[in-house]
């Protein structure tokens, strides 16, 4: 990470060649172990091109503090070059007219062929690229500790919710924690959307959580989902509220807990700790969701800059993000798979290869759905309100399933 001599040498070389070296200020909230390593990779690439990377990490709240800073900077007329923004929020920012047009880079690097249509459309506003995608995360994973499963006498990864509950009972009987969970509202919702997907299937998921159809949100299927969701809570430990996601992953790593419902950035944590998939930890689609893929695409939205050098640096950043070299290195560290199509997956582990195969398959079968928990599907206002309602239901056992449904349906009317 301390590559000052390299940077100085590169800048000198570039100065001699007269190239325009710029500075990119990059706003992000990748502060956990695996994530920080991944961010460092991007920084290295930029520095090797002679540009300066001004790291602007703002931790806390799953990006809340970062969004505050971003708004304040944009309003003041001094936006960063790139900010970690994804999903519909990209369109909201573009609608304000503050994002840069990346079509020149996109054409040169042939993004339209390199990206699946569903991803490309999120990165575009009115037909022009305004953001560069970094990876594809699969959210509907279930992670497990083989050690715990063995101690409890659980045979393999549960494929349905019924099998899951049976396994959880066995783990509880063995005196261990069945489900490691962190009580933050995005984590509650990550579990919730996997449950809805498992109980209702991809079409129901789309109707209820993406289209926010009131009938679907107040249907029996939703009631069943809420019941299953509440049942999962009974398998978590009481100290869960407020716990960070990677500390919950650590519980599985250390053999204290059996399962975790989390996206594949959890794999990044396992790998950063030197664990081997298949041996030290197991991965499988969340119960009932083997034919579906909930996607979460991290991306950097690029802001309109005034300085020519900075614009050049920004274009290089966009190109670097989509380059095969970066896609491979970054995703190896983060736990996700490259968003770029057609990449060789030999260096990736079995879980990643399964993810990659399912990504392509579900795109064809209609099982590829955006993650609501991670801001891929609905506006921040609706998402926030629904998360509030779901987390209230999770935390407060006195709220009945019927009332929970009503609250969620009401929250879904936020725009």
């Amino acid at each position, binding site marked *: 990470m301390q590559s000052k001599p390299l940077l100085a040498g590169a800048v000198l070389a570039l100065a001699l060649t007269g190239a325009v070296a710029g500075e990119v200020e990059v706003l992000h909230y990748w502060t956990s172990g695996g994530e920080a390593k991944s961010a460092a990779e991007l920084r290295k690439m930029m520095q090797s091109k002679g540009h300066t990377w001004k790291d602007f990490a703002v931790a806390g709240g799953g990006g809340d503090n970062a969004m505050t800073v971003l708004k304040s900077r944009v309003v003041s007329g001094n936006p960063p070059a790139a900010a970690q923004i994804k999903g519909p929020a990209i369109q*909201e920012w573009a609608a304000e007219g503050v994002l840069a047009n990346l079509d020149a880079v996109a054409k040169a690097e042939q993004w339209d062929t390199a990206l699946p249509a569903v991803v490309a459309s999120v990165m575009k506003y009115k037909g022009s690229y305004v953001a560069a995608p970094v990876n594809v995360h699969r959210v509907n994973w279930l992670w497990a500790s083989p050690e715990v499963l063995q101690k409890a006498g659980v045979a393999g990864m549960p494929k349905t919710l019924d099998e899951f509950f049976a396994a959880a009972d066995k783990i509880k009987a063995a005196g261990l924690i069945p489900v490691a969970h962190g009580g933050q509202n995005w984590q509650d919702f990550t579990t919730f959307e996997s449950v809805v997907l498992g109980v209702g299937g991809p079409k129901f998921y789309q109707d209820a959580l993406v289209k926010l159809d009131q009938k679907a949100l107040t249907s029996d299927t939703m009631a069943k989902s809420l019941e299953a969701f509440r049942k999962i809570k009974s398998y978590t430990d009481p100290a869960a509220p*407020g716990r960070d996601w990677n500390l919950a992953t650590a519980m599985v790593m250390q053999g204290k807990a059996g399962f975790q419902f989390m996206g594949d950035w959890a794999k990044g944590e396992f790998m950063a700790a030197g664990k081997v998939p298949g041996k030290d930890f197991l991965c499988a689609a969340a119960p009932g969701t083997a034919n579906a893929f909930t996607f979460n695409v991290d991306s950097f939205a690029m802001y309109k800059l005034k300085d020519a050098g900075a614009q050049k640096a920004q274009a290089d950043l966009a190109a670097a993000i989509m380059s095969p070299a970066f896609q491979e290195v970054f995703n190896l560290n983060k736990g996700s798979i490259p968003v770029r199509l057609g990449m060789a997956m030999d260096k990736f582990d079995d879980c990643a290869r399964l993810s990659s195969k399912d990504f392509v398959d579900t795109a064809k079968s209609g099982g590829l759905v955006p993650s609501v928990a991670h801001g891929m599907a609905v506006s921040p206002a609706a*998402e926030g309100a629904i998360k509030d309602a779901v*987390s209230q239901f999770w935390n407060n056992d006195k709220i009945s399933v019927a009332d929970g449904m009503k609250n969620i349906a009401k929250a879904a009317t936020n725009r």
Partner: protein
Amino acid sequence: MNSLDKLLPKLVLAPAFVLGLAFIYGFMVWNGVLSLTASRMLPNYEFVGLEQYTRLFEMDRWWVALKNLGIFGVLYVGGSMALGVLLAILLDQKVRAEGFIRTIYLYPMALSFVVTGTAWKWILNPSEGLQKLVQDLGWESFTFDWLVQSEMAIYCVVIAGVWQSAGFAMALFLAGLRGIDDSIIKAAQIDGASLPRIYWRIVLPALRPVFFSTLMVLAHLSIKAFDLVMALTAGGPGYATDVPATFMYAMSFSRGQIGLGAASATIMLATVAAIVVPYLYSELRKKP
């Protein structure tokens, strides 16, 4: 006084006048205007009347935030003052290590709420903090998991807040106590009044001005408890410890609902004004 001397005070005050009023009232008005618009991610000026306020009061989370402000405000201010008065009276008893003890009571005020929140978050954590400690010491069934219970978490915020500010209240009351004329007390003692009676009838009433100043400072701090809530519970579990300040922050900055955030801020200001303005008015009328 020559004419320059007449003009000079106004000139000197001018920057404060312009900047202060702009900063406080200009921005308040701007905020009020925003609360009447459909602003989402960034400000826009499409007027929608009182719609944001209607939406605000239909949200369960807002009502929870208001309730928490009431609970926290009353307990934090009341608790800090009660503890402050008690400690001040005790310390006023010509204690030998007074300076040292006073420093101990006062230092929490020097800490940032972020630091306080971080430390207390760990202390109150059921599986790693106080509960675990007492259980390890042998008392197996001891529970103190308020921090993770929706109903009780706000009281943890109160505990951390009182810890932070009671010393400051004590310092103010101590200064006030020292300002009371000894001769009145001595006269009362000669007349045979008991110590508690002296305190109740003479000392506490004489502390009234200090009481009000302290109330003002603590009320001001309780509104700023944003940092403390963010660091200690981040509004959780769920949104059980949300207060209007954190609500406004979330709505304006994370949810892209600036209009709604502005409406909540206006209500906060109105609440504060309702309490503070009559007090300020009466105080300033009394002054020479």
